[in-house]
């Protein structure tokens, strides 16, 4: 039934936005962003259970989950930043989009620092 909910929400918001676009462009844009965010939030609530399952699997298998957490974080940040960037581009704000992407890259870098330093340590230990 979730699919129907999303589908209905998307279609109704598209119709509303198309109708609104003729009268008030700014409000139509705000509506678009709002609809996108709600769809994304819906997807995220669903994602939570998936990640929960994966985490419980990892706990069961007894694997060290530090690296795995970093990968999950990086993946999530990449999606969110990509999403935000697309919204910015839709609104015609390319400058903000590139800055957002830049900021996202830096954040990913800071999160993945332990991985990078571990890799460098390991490689230098090899030689």
């Amino acid at each position, binding site marked *: 039934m979730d699919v129907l909910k999303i589908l209905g929400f998307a279609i109704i918001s598209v119709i509303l936005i198309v109708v609104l676009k003729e009268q008030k462009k700014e409000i139509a844009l705000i509506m678009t962003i709002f609809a996108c965010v709600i769809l994304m939030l819906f997807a995220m609530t669903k994602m939570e259970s998936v990640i929960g399952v994966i985490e419980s699997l990892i706990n069961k298998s007894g694997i060290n989950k530090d*690296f795995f957490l970093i*990968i999950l974080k990086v993946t999530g940040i990449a999606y969110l930043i990509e999403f935000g960037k697309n919204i910015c581009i839709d609104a015609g704000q390319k400058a903000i989009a590139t800055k957002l992407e830049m900021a996202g890259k830096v954040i990913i870098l800071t999160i993945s620092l332990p991985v990078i330093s571990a890799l460098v340590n390991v490689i230098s230990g090899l030689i």
Partner: protein
Amino acid sequence: MKKRKFLVIIFIIFTIFSNVICYGNENNNTESNNQNENLDINDVNEKVKENANFDEYIKAIDDELKKNNIDDIDIYDMSNSLLEDGSIDFNNLFFKILGLFSKEFKNVINSAVIIFIIVLVMSVLSSFELEKGSQILNIANLVCFFTLATIIIKSFIEIIGVFKNTITSLTTLMQIVSPFLMAILISTGAISTTGIIKPLVLFIASAVGFIINYIVVPFISISAALKIINNFSDNIKIGKMSSLFSSSALWIVSISFTIFLGILSLETTISSSVDSLAVKTMQNAVSNFVPVVGKFFSDSFETVVGATKVISNVSGVIGIITIVTIAIIPVLKILCVYILYQILSAIIEPICNNKTLSNFISDFAGLYKLLLGILIGVSILFVISSGIILNLVSSVVK
């Protein structure tokens, strides 16, 4: 004439009437023969064992096994059963090795599972690509690759450590086994063989250890590091450099093995026939030219040499079994990793559209194959050289 006749008569009288009394025991001769036969073979065995320091030899081998965390195999028991009834409980040995192997297998599977999960996440990441060539997703992919590389390199370093340890202990083992066999060989009279072979085998054992630990292993490590750097980005192209290092490692190993085996087999063939001749001549000379006791001496010589042969065969077999036991666990472990990586790269290719990933893993599988080949080669080289020495003992004294 008269004088001559007289002398002849006197001579005849003397020979007829002279009483020669001989005091002696008729049984004397047979008794000494019995003594020779009664010489218990077990006593001779014990004496030869004592002379050759057999117990210390077994203890040294046992220490080497303990160093490699192989506590389950009782080498004392094995040597006793070999000496007494000439058989080994291969079934028992096999199951003990299997038990040791299963411990290692668990670790290997664990790291393979982690790699697989990360690759799954990566493939999900790249399949959701919102926009073609999105930079942020590329960076996320790179981070995933870093993680993967860290895990792969960590297991690689662990295996390289095990590999180095195994080579070192195989070398040490060779330096324990060959002098012992040489000492036995020299006690059978093979002097020129021992003179040539002893330095040769010791040199080969330490040279192989040195070449592998200080030349080949660094080459393979450099090759692995270059492989990782090569996959960081498409702009860095040092794949050929990495394969140059790995193939030169392979060449060094195969050339040195060929040279060593060639020299060893050539030298043994010539010198052992010389020795065989010398020992036989000595034996014949002793039995024919030394009066009265020569025959007994020669017989007891044979008994002692027979006992020596038994001891040398047992110690050689134990040495070979230990070499194989120490080598087989790393060999199985590396084989396991190799097969798993091949399977992983085969699975990854369809699910992940990132082509470098499956290439990277199959490259590492190639490195493991190289390690596997070298380890098997070294253990076969050592087994063959101890086998050659063992053969010498039997060929010198027939």
